[in-house]
């Protein structure tokens, strides 16, 4: 169990801690993997430069699960973070201890949102392309985003405002005119609860959903239940796309130019194979193999191409709902706690639990977690989502 992979002593009140997925030239970046243990970058991630330029202090790096695509950080080569008997993330522990005003996270596969929901935190996953990914460890590039987590919606808003905006160095960064749209998003007045996305959530999670619904209603927001049979398929499609992208992205780690190198090998093939086999964890290996298989000649059209088409179907399904509603309320996880026993029973639990987070990941839509629930909005509505979260915070006090 390791919370910080690197920590700075500071008295500043403007401390932000970054997940160990952000490159830093003054601290190592391992991305939770033995493969990158001790790796030193030559430059800082763009978001960290922007925070520094605005007077914020990087207080340290928070440990993450291997390449941050697991359930809740359990696959870190430093070990899982356990608090009061339940699995959690290093970032969440740092925020709960009051050691930072906010954390920067990589939302690759929803672990950030799950941790926020389970720890009573606020987390915002912005619209894809509005925050630079330059200098982040790439995993599932078509859907992953930098996200911000804090104990309050106000702090999330402050940090998101400081890091958002076009970046020439990131080929997926949206133009300035698009990024500016977040400032003029209309307030959220009508919210839909997607009943098909509450499937599998336990009573505690559904109670959180009811509390948020009550807070919304008390603040004049109209809440209706609707159904949609397509959006729940996002999980399967995202598992395919994420695995394929991950497979390609981690193919760069071979023990030659940087990273872990095995001690024993007799030729170049053994150097590659032994280095990767010894350094990578089991969840990562299985996902690499699955991603590779989806891209094979036999499966490309049947599996990968199909998932790309389903992505469009899901985007269109959301667009249809957003003709009548401003946002969609759903759980972020099935339970308010995971334990080591859950992972021991099924180490691939994340491939099922991302049922709740995959819709926003595969579509690039913004999502805010607050009060233990998740709300997905139209593109560029992140500040409106945070405004609503703030209103509900007051309601809960």
């Amino acid at each position, binding site marked *: 169990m390791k919370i910080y992979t690197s920590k700075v002593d500071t008295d500043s009140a403007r401390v932000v801690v970054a997940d160990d997925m952000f490159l830093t030239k003054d601290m190592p970046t391992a991305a939770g993997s033995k493969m990158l243990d*001790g*790796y*030193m970058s*030559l430059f800082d991630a763009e978001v960290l430069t922007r925070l520094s330029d605005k007077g914020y202090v990087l207080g340290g790096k928070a440990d993450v699960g291997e390449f941050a695509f697991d359930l809740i950080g359990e696959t870190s080569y430093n070990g899982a973070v356990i608090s009061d008997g339940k699995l959690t993330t290093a970032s969440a522990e740092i925020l709960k201890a009051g050691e930072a005003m906010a954390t920067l996270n990589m939302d690759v596969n929803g672990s950030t949102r799950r941790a926020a929901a389970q720890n009573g935190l606020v987390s915002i996953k912005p619209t*894809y*392309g509005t925050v630079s990914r330059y200098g982040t460890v790439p995993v599932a590039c*078509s859907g992953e985003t930098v996200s911000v987590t804090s104990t309050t919606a106000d702090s999330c808003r402050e940090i998101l405002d400081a890091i958002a905006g076009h970046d*020439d160095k990131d*080929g*997926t960064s*949206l133009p300035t005119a*698009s990024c500016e749209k977040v400032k003029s998003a209309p307030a959220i007045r009508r919210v839909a609860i997607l009943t098909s996305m509450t499937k599998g959530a336990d009573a505690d999670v559904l109670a959180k959903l009811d509390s948020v619904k009550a807070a919304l209603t008390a603040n004049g927001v109209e809440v209706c239940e609707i159904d949609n049979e*397509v959006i729940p*398929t996002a999980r*399967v*499609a995202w*598992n395919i796309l994420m695995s394929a992208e991950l*497979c390609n992205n981690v*193919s760069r780690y071979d023990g*030659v*130019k*940087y*990273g*872990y*190198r095995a001690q024993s*090998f*007799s*030729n*170049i*093939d*053994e*150097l*590659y*194979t*032994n280095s*990767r*086999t010894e350094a*990578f964890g*089991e969840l990562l*290996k*299985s996902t*690499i*193999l*699955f991603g*590779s298989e989806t891209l094979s000649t036999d499966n490309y059209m*049947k599996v990968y*191409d*199909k998932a*790309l*088409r*389903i*992505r*469009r*179907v899901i*985007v269109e399904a959301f667009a249809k709902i957003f003709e009548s509603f401003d946002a969609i309320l759903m759980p972020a996880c099935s339970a308010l706690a995971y334990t080591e026993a859950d992972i021991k029973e099924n180490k*691939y639990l994340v*491939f099922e639990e991302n049922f709740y987070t995959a819709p926003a990941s*595969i*579509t*690039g839509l913004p999502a805010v977690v607050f009060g233990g629930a998740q709300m997905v909005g139209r593109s560029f509505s992140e500040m409106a989502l945070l405004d609503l979260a703030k209103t509900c915070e007051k309601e809960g006090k």
Partner: protein
Amino acid sequence: MERDTLRRLEMLNQLSLTDAQKEDVIAFFAARDAELKTLEAIDTSDTERMVHVMPIMTVVRDDVIIKTFSREALQQGAPETDEGYWCVPRVVE
């Protein structure tokens, strides 16, 4: 999944699994395969693929010299170097 297929995937991805891990991965693949039925049930014959959710344009930068890193700096994290070269086992006999 056939064991030969798994062996091919291991080779392609430069990984080597134990027998127990192979059994585990075969079960993992079976679970993923079973899920595919939910996608197959949706007709996408008239739907175009969506690679990026946002319009992505080719990045064109000004043709100006920017800061680059020295060879020494780029090799500082290398497992083994020699006189500016990355070292690997002999590949040509």
